[in-house]
């Protein structure tokens, strides 16, 4: 989707610090107001998005899919997987944990599992990630997160009622027949 192809990258942010930041930046009224204000401004929005892009590129080799999974992947970006898998590793991981496509690099999901497990967050990898919306590449996922638009990116479990079916709520169903 973007110009840069997906390549597995080791995050430059320590796991413990990442989770600490996660707690500090959890959505709340102040951040909701701030993000709404930034979004409304024709100048602040691209500026903020640019800062996010630079920071997340340096830390996570972010490709700006706009639908950030990092909070539940041990802060290892799954969009660095050459198959862009959002639900865990493929079956081609080498015995040494190397990526099938780039054997000299570690599989992002192997690293995600290790990092999440090291902080007692292994259960995060059990979450079911919904298909992403490709129209959102390049958007600020921080603004989306604080605005609550990311809430439908993953779910605890699929159920038989159809309530948790794979239609992200940020993308309204067309309806009709």
């Amino acid at each position, binding site marked *: 989707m973007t110009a840069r192809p997906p390549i597995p990258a080791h995050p430059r942010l320590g796991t413990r610090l990442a989770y600490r930041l996660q707690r500090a930046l959890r959505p709340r009224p102040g951040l909701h107001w701030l993000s709404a204000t930034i979004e409304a401004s024709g100048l602040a929005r691209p500026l903020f998005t640019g800062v996010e892009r630079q920071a997340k590129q340096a830390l996570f080799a972010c490709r700006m899919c706009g639908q950030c999974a990092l909070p539940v992947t041990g802060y290892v970006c799954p969009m660095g997987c*050459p*198959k*862009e*898998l*959002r*639900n*865990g*590793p*493929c*079956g*081609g*991981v*080498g*015995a*040494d*944990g190397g990526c*099938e*496509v780039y054997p000299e690099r570690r*599989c992002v*999901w*192997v690293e995600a*599992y*290790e990092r999440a*497990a090291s902080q007692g967050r*292994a259960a995060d*990898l*059990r979450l*079911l*990630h*919904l*298909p992403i919306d*490709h129209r959102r590449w390049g958007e600020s996922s921080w603004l989306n997160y604080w605005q609550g638009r990311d809430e439908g990116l993953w779910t605890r*479990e*699929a159920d*038989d009622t*159809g309530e948790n*079916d*794979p*239609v992200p709520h940020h993308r309204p*169903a*067309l*309806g*009709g*027949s």
Partner: protein
Amino acid sequence: MSLRDRLTSGSFAVTAEISPPRGASIDPITATAALLRDWVDAVNVTDNQGSNVRLASWAGSLAALQAGLEPVMQMTCRDRNRIALQSDLLGASALGIRNVLVMTGDHPKFGDHPEAKPVFDLDSVQLLWTLRHMRDQGAVLSGRALKPSPDCFLGAVENPYAPPAEFRAERLGKKIDAGAQFVQTQFVFDVAPFAQWMTQVRELGLHEKCYILAGVGAVRSRNALDFMRDKVPGVHVPDDVYRRLRAVPADQTAAEGARLAAETIQQLSAIDGVAGVHLLVAGNEQAVPGILDSAGIWAGVRAERHGR
């Protein structure tokens, strides 16, 4: 009896695999299906296996069906986006293809078109979920209703050998939550780690929610052995197996490979929760009767057709 009924009835199921030809003819599939239909319950038809262009999986599946052998249509996420995948499920279901096996797929890098665009719009969990949604909710992802909705028996794959080992059973759990009703595993050459994985699977209760068919390969040549060990992503050939197959003269590798497969099947069928085996014998289908004979498998379609 269909694969679904066979598994539901609790009898040991046997499936095999066919690679469609690189060419515009279904004759090779018809011939292979004639060879296999009295021996296996269903046959997987691969989807551009190894990222090499071959006859389409749906067409190969239809050819097998017409030749009297129930197909399992393989569907990868590599070449098609969510629109094409949903459309193909509708087409397959309309043509009478019931079993669909969902997998991520090999990366194009490994095939004959390494310059191709890798699609991977959905991953295997999302594709299972999508197909289940189409069947059970009668709608495509956009919400538009299907009239009628497709009928399908959904399968997934798992590789018990690939890291992270602690997560592999959980990952199967995700696939089951997303809709998998049966699973076929990667080649089992090393039974002990597989049995360990099965222990985790039973602890999570997954064997009660999903039928597990263990993958068994029959090595037919030294070249195939080396290729499998060194070139196929995710395949684990332990040293003792490698030495055993290298120890016999080259012209007896196939016979030894078949013996090994039969022994593996016997060991696997004794593991609690294993519902059947999946014979990964594409290109070596004539070995199937011998392997099942040596393994003493007289279940499923074989018992019906051969009356024992």
